[in-house]
């Protein structure tokens, strides 16, 4: 069972694949042709949840409806009879219609919830392609179905939450490399525990065997004083040893915790850098940052204190129980029997607080919603004179969250004093039971034993509290560990072969041979594109949005690997290249240039740290950036904001061009580099780009077609196909050409 099928079984509660006997029956009815795709229609005609299946084969479509448990009626339709496929989406119910001749009733009508929509869209895509005369032949129906159904959960969670114990064990595995420090830390923690148990015993011993005997005259006062002073000295030494051990334990465990957190952060960040772009398109930036920061910090807390506290508290409770029962079993039972109840009460308190916390969290998110709405949108608030309304909205939510927080405070401030009262009640009960015995009634009890007993009882509270909160501590740690391991377990989709080829240097020939590409394995974004671009050519990529232009450049940059066909660089399959080495010879200038937090100098030198200052100035001059940089307060040493927000779009763009010029790539990708700037800035950027592209292979995506007049060739990419190619003049000469139509449309708009 693969991960997607596991997600379906564990979370979604629907079959993880088409039932085997049904599949076999359908394939038999089709003359042993395979089921290529299938989807679960989970709504019947009355819009009740049920289970029907739509299966697609090379020549047929079959709709299987249940008759009784495990028996099906199968209605097959030849694909040649399908003339149209229509989908009517609703809020939660969608309807797919397979239509034959115009006035005939539909060949099949199926209804399904949004959960099944991905799987149905796959079937619809293949049928639509067939109606356009193109053949798509999916090969792994089980995988495609599971991927489509499990994807929303996988994207939200990615890994199926494993067993808690396994996750904790894996986390603790990070401690093994610090075995020596860990042993020392645990030994110190054990010394702290043992040293805590001795003083109460000594107190009892002094009272019963020294003070009382001296008072009764059964021990010489001199001998008694000597023993007493030795005992006091031992006690003092024990306290010193205990505190030294506590220091060693705290110091070592916090340091080990930091080391483990550091290792996790480093491993995580290194792994994130290696992951493919597809991973980042699935995960929110904030969520990834949280994993590297807050989650590893929470794991430090668990490793440094949680592990030791929980294990030593268990040992301490066990030890105290044994000691108390051995000192006096009757009083011992009074103290030990309530312990499980107290732990359970603390656990229950945590659970009831948990739903309070969820409620408070929900109300907090309503407060932050107002803030994240109104602060970025403050101009709109002011323009529409809505300040008063927004203040009132905030006040209501602010009061609401305060009430919720106060309710939480009311709960814990009531609970803990009550719990302590219960502990004290047991102590009073001990007194009640002990007092007659101390006065000589019933089983004898010495004053010393009783004092020891009382001192031990004060030590119960701390471990009880820790054990009561153990479930919460472990849950929090497991949850953070899951989030960290999820990233570590994600495999980069683009990987180098064992002995990759290094092209030194890349000359710049780029060849696409019947390249297909689908993000989900079925719906193709590129549908068989072929071209051969010679070194030094400037290729303009034009066409409607969503046609596949960006996918072409993503494949050239090897952000993704082609699903079918091959991409070749200088005749070598891109999959066999050393990706890092190849990308060193590739440059990109994007529509929204990204500047890192740092100086202008650091940003220009980003791809070539060793570049001299002179080379930086030369690159900036070539990028038409030198002048405005010199006008900045601290010239090239000016720090630009987190995303370069202190600079205008055109200025940021010119810095990114300077960065690309300094990087000196053999293949250059310009993705809408001038689309978001005014005409004057565009002219300056255009000049800079002309200097940049000289002598390189360039792929330029542009919506303003006039900017691509100088291109060696233009590729018109439409619906994933290379619809037209040629020079500007050649394409304009085509009377019904796409390029000509787009060009004329833009001229009219100007």
């Amino acid at each position, binding site marked *: 069972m693969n991960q997607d099928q596991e997600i379906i079984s564990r*979370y*979604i*509660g629907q079959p993880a694949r088409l039932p085997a006997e049904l599949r076999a029956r359908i394939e038999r009815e089709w003359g042993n042709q395979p089921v290529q795709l299938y989807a679960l229609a989970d*709504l019947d*005609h009355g*819009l*009740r*949840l*049920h289970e029907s299946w739509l299966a697609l084969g090379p020549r047929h479509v079959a709709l299987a409806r249940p008759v009784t448990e495990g028996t099906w009626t199968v209605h097959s339709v030849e694909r040649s009879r399908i003339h149209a496929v*229509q989908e*009517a*989406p*609703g*809020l*939660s*119910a969608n*309807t797919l*219609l397979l239509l034959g001749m115009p006035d005939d*009733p*539909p060949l099949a*009508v199926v*209804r399904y*919830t*949004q*959960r099944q*929509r991905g799987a149905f869209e796959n079937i619809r895509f293949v049928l639509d392609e067939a109606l356009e005369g193109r053949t798509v032949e999916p090969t792994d129906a089980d995988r495609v179905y599971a991927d489509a159904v499990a994807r*929303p*959960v996988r*994207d*939200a*969670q990615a*890994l199926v*939450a494993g067993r808690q114990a396994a996750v904790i064990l894996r986390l603790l595995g990070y401690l093994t490399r610090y075995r020596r420090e860990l042993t020392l830390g645990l030994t110190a923690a054990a010394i702290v525990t043992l040293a805590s148990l001795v003083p109460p015993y000594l107190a009892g011993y002094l009272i019963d065997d020294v003070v009382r005997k001296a008072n009764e005259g059964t021990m010489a006062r001199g001998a008694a004083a000597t023993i007493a002073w030795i005992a006091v000295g031992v006690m003092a030494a024990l306290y010193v040893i205990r505190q030294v051990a506590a220091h060693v334990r705290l110091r070592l465990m916090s340091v080990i915790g930091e080391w483990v957190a550091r290792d996790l952060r480093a491993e995580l960040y290194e792994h994130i850098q290696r992951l493919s772009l597809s991973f980042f398109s699935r995960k929110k930036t904030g969520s990834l940052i949280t994993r590297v920061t807050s989650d590893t910090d929470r794991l430090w807390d668990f490793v440094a204190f949680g592990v030791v506290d929980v294990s030593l508290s268990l040992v301490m409770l066990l030890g105290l129980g044994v000691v108390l029962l051995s000192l006096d079993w009757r009083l011992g039972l009074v103290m030990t029997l309530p312990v499980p109840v107290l732990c359970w009460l603390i656990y229950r308190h945590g659970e009831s607080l948990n*739903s*309070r916390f*969820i*409620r408070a969290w*929900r109300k907090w*998110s309503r407060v932050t919603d107002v803030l994240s709405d109104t602060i970025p949108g403050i101009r709109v608030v002011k323009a529409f004179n809505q300040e008063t309304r927004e203040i009132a909205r905030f006040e209501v939510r602010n009061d*609401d969250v305060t009430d919720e927080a106060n309710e939480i405070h009311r709960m814990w401030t009531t609970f803990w004093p009550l719990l302590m009262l219960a502990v004290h009640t047991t102590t009073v009960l001990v007194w009640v039971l002990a007092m007659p015995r101390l006065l000589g009634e019933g089983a004898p009890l010495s004053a010393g034993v009783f004092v020891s007993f009382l001192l031990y009882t004060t030590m119960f509270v701390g471990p009880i509290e820790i054990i009561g909160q153990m479930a919460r501590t472990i849950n929090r740690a497991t*949850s953070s560990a*899951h*989030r960290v391991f*999820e990233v570590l377990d994600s495999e980069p989709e683009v990987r180098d072969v064992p002995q990759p080829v290094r092209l030194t240097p890349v000359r710049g020939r780029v060849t696409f041979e019947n390249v297909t590409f689908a993000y989900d394995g079925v719906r193709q974004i590129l549908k068989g594109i072929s071209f051969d671009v010679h070194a030094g050519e400037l290729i303009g990529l034009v066409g409607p949005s969503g046609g596949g232009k960006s996918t072409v450049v993503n494949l050239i940059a090897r952000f993704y690997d082609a699903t079918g066909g091959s991409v070749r660089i200088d005749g070598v399959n891109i999959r066999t290249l050393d990706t890092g080495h190849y990308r060193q010879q590739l440059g990109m200038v994007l529509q929204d240039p990204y500047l890192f937090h740092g100086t202008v100098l650091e940003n220009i030198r980003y791809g070539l740290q060793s570049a001299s200052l002179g080379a930086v100035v030369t690159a900036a001059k070539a990028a038409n950036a030198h002048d405005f940089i010199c006008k900045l307060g601290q010239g090239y040493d000016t720090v630009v904001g987190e995303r370069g927000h202190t600079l205008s779009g055109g200025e940021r763009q010119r810095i990114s061009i300077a960065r690309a010029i300094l990087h000196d790539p053999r293949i250059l990708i310009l993705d809408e580099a001038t689309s978001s700037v005014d005409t004057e800035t565009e002219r300056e950027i255009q000049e800079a780009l002309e200097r940049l592209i000289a002598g390189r292979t360039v792929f330029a995506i542009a919506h303003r077609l006039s900017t691509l007049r100088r291109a060696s060739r233009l590729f018109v990419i439409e619906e994933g196909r290379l619809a037209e190619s040629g020079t500007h003049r050649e394409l304009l000469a085509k009377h019904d050409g796409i390029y000509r139509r787009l060009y004329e449309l833009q001229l009219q708009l100007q």
Partner: protein
Amino acid sequence: MTHALELEGETEITLRSSGDGRLFAIVGGEAVAVRLRQCFPWSEPNRHLSLRDEDDEEVALVEDPASLAPESRHALEQAVAEAGFVLEVTRVLSIEEEVEIRQWKVETRQGPRSFQTHLDDWPRTLPMGGLLIRDVGGDLYLLAAPGEMDRRSKELLWAFVD
């Protein structure tokens, strides 16, 4: 089942239900398959209904179906029921938090269902009352009257209801 429909006082179209879930608008004598979109699925689910063709272009906007002839209105109501369908939760069996997601097990009027929401995705309070939950796959779950559910459901929902 063909009925004339007055729209905005000037356009006249005819609506027809095909019986297989399709709705046709007869515009200028020509039958156009249309799908229905509710402009206000929660604020005013039965008014302001947009009829759209295969290319998702609006063919007509029905502001108030009450003015229609009964059979036309019936055809439209059927389409509204289908387009506005959401799963109606009648009982909540469990809500559990896992890594990044909240796992719900519920009984709905349509049958038992398990679904997942993002941890920071909260049920939405609807203008006409009740709660609406959107799961990670995009399905919507309506809790029309959470206050009238059984005790256990109310306990489980307590953290999510004001």
